[in-house]
């Protein structure tokens, strides 16, 4: 409902943060004896220079888009879901199982069922324990979602290391999912699958839910001001459970897409920490679904371009980690402070 100018103004701070981070990254490169200009050129070419590179960048962005949406949805409800990583894991587990254990289904149905399994698993992981604990005992979701992440990771170790989901043999890996559950590749010999459309569709869904449904209205009301929501007769506890569940569903779908589109099996600790980068993605996007797509693309590009930068400009790709770290710092500092301010201001707005 913001006006066009308000939108641009809101986008200004994150853009500045990114530019500033690149600038500081350049200084770091100079200080360590590298020329930043060719390095950044290589970074850009590596991310967007060829159709193949673009596809790879997009492929890296897809899980970030989905987990980022999950975190953003929770943030809009006033909840800090830092457990997207765990929800991603259980989503992967459930999807993998449906992928190899369920047979005889036509591809479309099999894919849909596997995705649904991932979404439900992620939702339960987010809603069931953290949501219910938060809603009925007040236990803080930062702690509980984090704890559930460790549980998820341990669960996958258990399942794969000699557990019920290990494929015959000695490597801790699950059986391959059936081809009927594969997501089609969009660009051959890349990792870019139809999961991209799922991520785009998820953004539409997230936006529709938040802005157009009564559920989204409730979630945002609770997120802005739980007291006012209660005054309005909104069931704050139930809304909290639903919001964490929805958030977990997005992260669960991210895990599902990674299995169905890219890995086709479950590896022991195969993730690149998407669930954590997702927090930065959501913060950078100010929890706006569309902007989340853009922020995820930025981080996808950084990670894709980094290896090319190392190859062609000789700059260690760790320097990209530095830039990422600086972005995270600027964004997190700004957004976390703004969020905390808003939280406390809800109680004592200086508006009189």
């Amino acid at each position: 409902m913001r006006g066009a100018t308000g939108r641009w103004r809101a986008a200004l701070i994150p853009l500045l943060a990114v530019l500033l981070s690149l600038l500081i990254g350049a200084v770091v490169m100079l200080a360590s004896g590298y020329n930043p200009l060719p390095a950044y050129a290589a970074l850009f070419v590596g991310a967007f220079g060829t159709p193949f590179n673009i596809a790879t960048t997009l492929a890296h962005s897809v899980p970030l888009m989905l987990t980022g949406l999950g975190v953003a949805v929770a943030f809009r409800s006033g909840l800090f879901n830092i457990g997207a990583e765990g929800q991603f894991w259980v989503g992967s587990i459930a999807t993998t199982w449906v992928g190899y254990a369920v047979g005889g289904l036509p591809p479309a149905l099999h894919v849909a069922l596997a995705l649904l399994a991932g979404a439900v698993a992620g939702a339960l992981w987010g809603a069931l324990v953290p949501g219910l604990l938060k809603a009925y005992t007040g236990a803080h979701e930062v702690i509980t979602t984090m704890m559930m992440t460790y549980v998820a990771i341990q669960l996958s170790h258990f399942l794969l290391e000699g557990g019920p989901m290990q494929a015959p043999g000695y490597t801790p890996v699950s059986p391959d999912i059936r081809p009927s559950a594969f997501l089609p590749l969009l660009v051959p010999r890349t990792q870019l699958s139809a999961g991209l459309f799922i991520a785009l569709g998820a953004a539409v869904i997230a936006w529709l839910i938040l802005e157009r449904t009564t559920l989204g209205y409730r979630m945002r009301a609770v997120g802005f001001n739980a007291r006012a929501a209660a005054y309005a007769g909104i069931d704050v506890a139930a809304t909290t459970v639903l919001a964490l569940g929805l958030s977990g569903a997005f992260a669960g779908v991210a895990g599902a897409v990674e299995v169905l589109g890219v890995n086709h099996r479950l590896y022991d600790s195969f993730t690149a920490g998407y669930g954590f980068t997702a927090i930065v993605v959501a913060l950078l996007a100010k929890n706006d679904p569309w902007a989340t797509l853009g922020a995820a693309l930025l981080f996808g590009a950084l990670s894709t371009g980094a290896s090319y930068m190392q190859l062609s400009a000789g700059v260690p790709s760790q320097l990209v980690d530095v830039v990422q770290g600086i972005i995270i710092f600027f964004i997190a500092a700004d957004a976390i402070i703004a969020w905390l301010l808003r939280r406390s201001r809800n109680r004592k707005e200086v508006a009189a």
Partner: protein
Amino acid sequence: MDEVLRLRGITKRFPGVLANDRVDLGLLRGEIHAVLGENGAGKSTLMKIVAGMLEPDEGRIELDGRPVRFSSPRDAIAAGIGMVYQHFMLIPVFTVAENVVLGAEPGRGLRFDRREAEREVRELAERYHMEVDPAARVADLSVGLQQRVEILKTFYRKARILILDEPTAALTPQEARELFQVMRNLAGQGISILFISHKLDEVLEVADRITVMRHGRTVATLRPAETSEQELANLMVGRAVQLTSVRPPVERGPAVLEVADLTVQREDGRPAVQGVGFAIHAGEVFGIAGVEGNGQAELVEAIAGLRPAAAGRIRFLGRDVTAWDARRRALAGIAYVPEDRVGTGLVMGFTLAENLALKRYFLPPLARRGWIDRRALWSEAKGRLEAYDVRPPEPGLAARALSGGNQQKVILARELGSDPELLVAYQPTRGLDVGAIEFVHGQILRLRGEGKAILLVSLELDEVLELSDTVAVMHRGRLAAVFPAGEADRERVGLYMTGGRERAQEEEGAGR
């Protein structure tokens, strides 16, 4: 007397609003200068500019004749300007002294010297005649004392100019009188005070000069001796305002709300309301007077369904609603204007349209099968905003962008506009300008005329006496007295308010 502060041509624009339009204003040393104006006239904006919270788009601020520029409150504080906002910025678990020195603590390095802090604060309080215990926890203090702590905070930072935004809005009349005494003392010591108020009588009582703002401009600066409440009201609003409303006779109908033996507890389990019983009939305004904190807030929350009844019954239109939740009661026809507009009544990040829909966002025509019809939301909001003269009447504006009084009007538009059978209103006119008060009083009397019931809680005794058919006084969680309108006068009600019940009864007994 010399001029310590001069504003020249201050202009401030917000998207679509000219909040301050070439404002000129001078403040003398040791002067108490009141700023009056309609809701949204730009008073708070102007004060925030002086205090460095906002930067003007145009214009100059001069201190002692020299131009200054503030880019943050820090700059303004360094220049000797301190502001107390209407909503305090204190840390409740800290002591008075800790709050006062926070950010400018005495002590060396990282060590905090509590003794020294308490000594300094005690000295400061004595110098300015503002008694308060430096070792007390802020959470345990009354609103009036908390405000004192805020004022001390500015003096600890060596303020010479004190800005108060609606300082009496949350105070009891007694506390307000004490504040005025403090203000006069301060002025006597050469401190200059700028303060905003909507209460004309207190402005006339305490101010040396009065500046009236309208639509972002200053329209007049007057001395109290040269003017009157009526003239000030007319200047503010730009038309003749009726300062008192008349209550036409209305035939009283059947009971709408019946409360019996109601007991309500505070968060800590102590009783806030004890065995209260009364009935409100159709066409009746039932006013509750009393000093803040005597259980009024808990009583209305219990009636609205936001706080459980520990004992007793609440009947509404003949049905027992004691076990109903807030939504069910709201939908059945109980409207509720809460005490705390920014914390409870509004979602500041929501648009006005969304705020107006707060209690019915899930019902047709605003929503169907879980989907919100934004066009319906919008058009309904547009009408409400215009009917209640919210400025600007923009459904898409965030509630936080409205002035304090206009935020209150949004709540009233939602609650009064829902055509309730029972209106429960806690301080419905807090923060409103005289024109808006006239309007709200008119609406309350309109509901009364239509045979609705109204429960009005107000700390303004005059408001209760003016509007109520029945006046009750609440003291320590009980109804100390209930009078029909004709028998309630300021003295009698005031006596019961302060717990002079026994005394009052004795005197009446002796008179007979």
